């Protein structure tokens, strides 16, 4: 949001400081026989207050694992997270308190609601865990139902299977808001919905962001949706961040070869100018024993010797707020397309 974000009274660091800061988050899943899935491998990013950070990438890039680590549904192996300047799970911000402030909406609207609970009971569950009386929690649930566009008189006492996918996803959003969070992680939250319903839910998400001053982490494989809703976008590949930056800058002028490939794989929407060549060959590799050096180098059209040997670090590229992990952006990296050292100096 370009406008001044509505500041929460719980705010500590002030506007413009990150709400969430992830530092070298790492999560590996050991398989049998010494193999390790490097699902998330040293991921650094920050989410500013009031902004929407889009996260894109293909299967195996670690975007969903990142979401679950951020939500602390699984613990990271390494790294730490700061929420409004305080270490998550540390002395001043307990995990339980953090969970009041960060919530998540899942992709599968049916699986994320307990089939034996009525809609209002599902929404009221979180607040009761945090000591709100059952009666107050139910009242809050009905108020939230109204705010997500479902008439409580009709829907509050229904069960999940009596609702359509779009309605269920509205309930999940209401449930996430029941604790009054500041950060909401939306993990493919609109991906399973039909296009016409998806647009309704996106409108709702934008309204709620405004109304409650929320900060979103919006994970999706749909690049159109991410462009529409995000302020900044983070591109992941094989458990690492390859590029992060303001949405229009990144879409109009992608700097990392993978971002370029991903964007040019989007259907053209123009019958007179169809895509003629696939930007990449083969499938995205799986994150078990990923390649040395730059993880993208085996598929990168511009790869050179240095790419196979040295791992590029995420660094500011150009003059904007963009960060790219590519040797072509670093002066003196040894890549022939890198800017010359004297130029940079």
């Amino acid at each position: 949001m370009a406008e001044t974000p509505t500041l929460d009274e719980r705010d500590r660091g002030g506007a413009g400081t990150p709400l969430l800061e992830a530092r070298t988050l790492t999560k590996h899943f050991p398989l049998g026989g010494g193999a390790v899935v490097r699902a998330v491998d040293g991921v650094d990013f920050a989410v500013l207050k009031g902004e929407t950070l889009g996260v894109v990438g293909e299967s195996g890039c670690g975007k969903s694992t990142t979401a679950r680590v951020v939500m602390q549904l699984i613990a990271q192996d390494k790294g730490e997270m700061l929420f409004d300047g305080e270490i998550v799970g540390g002395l001043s911000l307990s995990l339980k308190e953090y969970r009041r402030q960060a919530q998540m909406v899942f992709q599968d609207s049916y699986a994320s609601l307990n089939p034996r609970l009525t809609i209002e009971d599902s929404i009221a569950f979180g607040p009761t865990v945090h000591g709100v009386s059952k009666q107050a929690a139910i009242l809050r649930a009905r108020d939230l139902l109204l705010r997500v566009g479902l008439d409580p008189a009709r829907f509050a006492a229904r069960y999940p299977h009596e609702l359509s996918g779009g309605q269920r996803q509205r309930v999940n959003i209401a449930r996430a808001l029941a604790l009054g969070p500041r950060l909401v992680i939306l993990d493919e939250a609109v991906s399973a919905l039909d296009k016409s319903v998806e647009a309704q839910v996106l409108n709702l998400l934008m309204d709620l962001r405004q109304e409650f001053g929320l900060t979103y982490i919006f994970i999706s494989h749909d690049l159109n949706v991410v462009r529409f809703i995000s302020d900044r976008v983070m591109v992941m590949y094989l458990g690492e961040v390859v590029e992060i930056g303001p949405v229009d800058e990144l879409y109009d002028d992608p700097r990392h070869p993978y971002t370029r490939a991903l964007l040019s794989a989007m259907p053209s929407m123009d019958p007179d100018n169809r895509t003629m060549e696939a930007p990449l060959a083969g499938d995205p590799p799986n994150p078990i024993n990923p390649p040395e050096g730059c993880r993208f180098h085996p598929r990168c059209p511009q790869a050179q010797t240095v790419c196979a040997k040295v791992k590029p670090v995420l660094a500011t590229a150009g003059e904007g707020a963009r960060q790219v992990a590519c040797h072509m952006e670093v002066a003196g990296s040894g890549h022939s397309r890198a800017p010359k050292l004297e130029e940079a100096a």
Partner: protein
Amino acid sequence: MTAPLVAQPLVAIENLTVRFRGAQNVHAVNGVSLTLEPGKVLGILGESGSGKSVTLKTLLRLLPESRTDIGGTVQVDGRDVLALNPQDLSDYRGAVTSMIFQDPMLALDPVYTIGEQIAEAIVRHEKIGRKAAMARALELLELVRIPSPERRLKAYPHEMSGGMRQRAMIALALAARPKLLLADEPTTALDATVQIQILLLLRQLQRDLGMGVIFVTHDIGVAVEISDRLAVMYAGQIVETGTVRELLRDPQHPYTKGLLAANLHGARKGERLEAIPGAPPALNEPPASCSFAPRCKHAQERCRAALPPVVTLGEGRLVRCVLAEDALAPA
């Protein structure tokens, strides 16, 4: 066999209705008519429950016949598909019409190698030996551009990546040289960079082999990338047809317009989307009025009173909406 006259369409569906019987009947397809010229690609665009996949399955008679009522006629390459006897049906499947699916793991048999499955499909339709069939299978794998095809011939489906499996399934579908290929969301489950590879492959195969293709999808971007013509389905009916260009540049039906807006291509950041309100109807009754009227901001009394007219705007350009009729009428 003499070549069929150019004028004869490869597929001609006339007033197709499909009803599933059960505790509650479901009128999945309600009067669909469409034609496909040989060597052309028709995209059927629709959301879940629009009847697009059911229409496709009817072309191969894949619906459970014991609890399905099918009305209307379905002609493919001069055959009356709904009247085929079991022997003719099994000759027809694969050799005239074949199909690729969203999930190749369900279409491929996990206990046979890719080579064995393709060879089996060839032998079923042609009188050639096992060895010759294997050689043809290898050619097919090369055709769908699977790297190191000799090795893949001996691979099992689970040993391949998602994109590779999709290619193997396409090779299997092409084994008996069909004239019509039906594609049921074959790229929906794939990653973006793989999806475009498969789309380009299908486009090239279609052109090289001169097949007719009916491609069902919910993704308008995918449909544009592969189709010559589009048919938009809603609640078991086709609401608009035309070339891709016509539908994209000048959509007439309010539902088509809504779908295009919901694709977000070119949507302005921060602006509210013009979303279609509500959800599709349940289809427990056959439609007696415009199915889209409850969600349509242009809906009028007559939309709720009777079925909307099918308005012909041009050659193969049909719209099922009163607005189009008004636009045609002299002012």
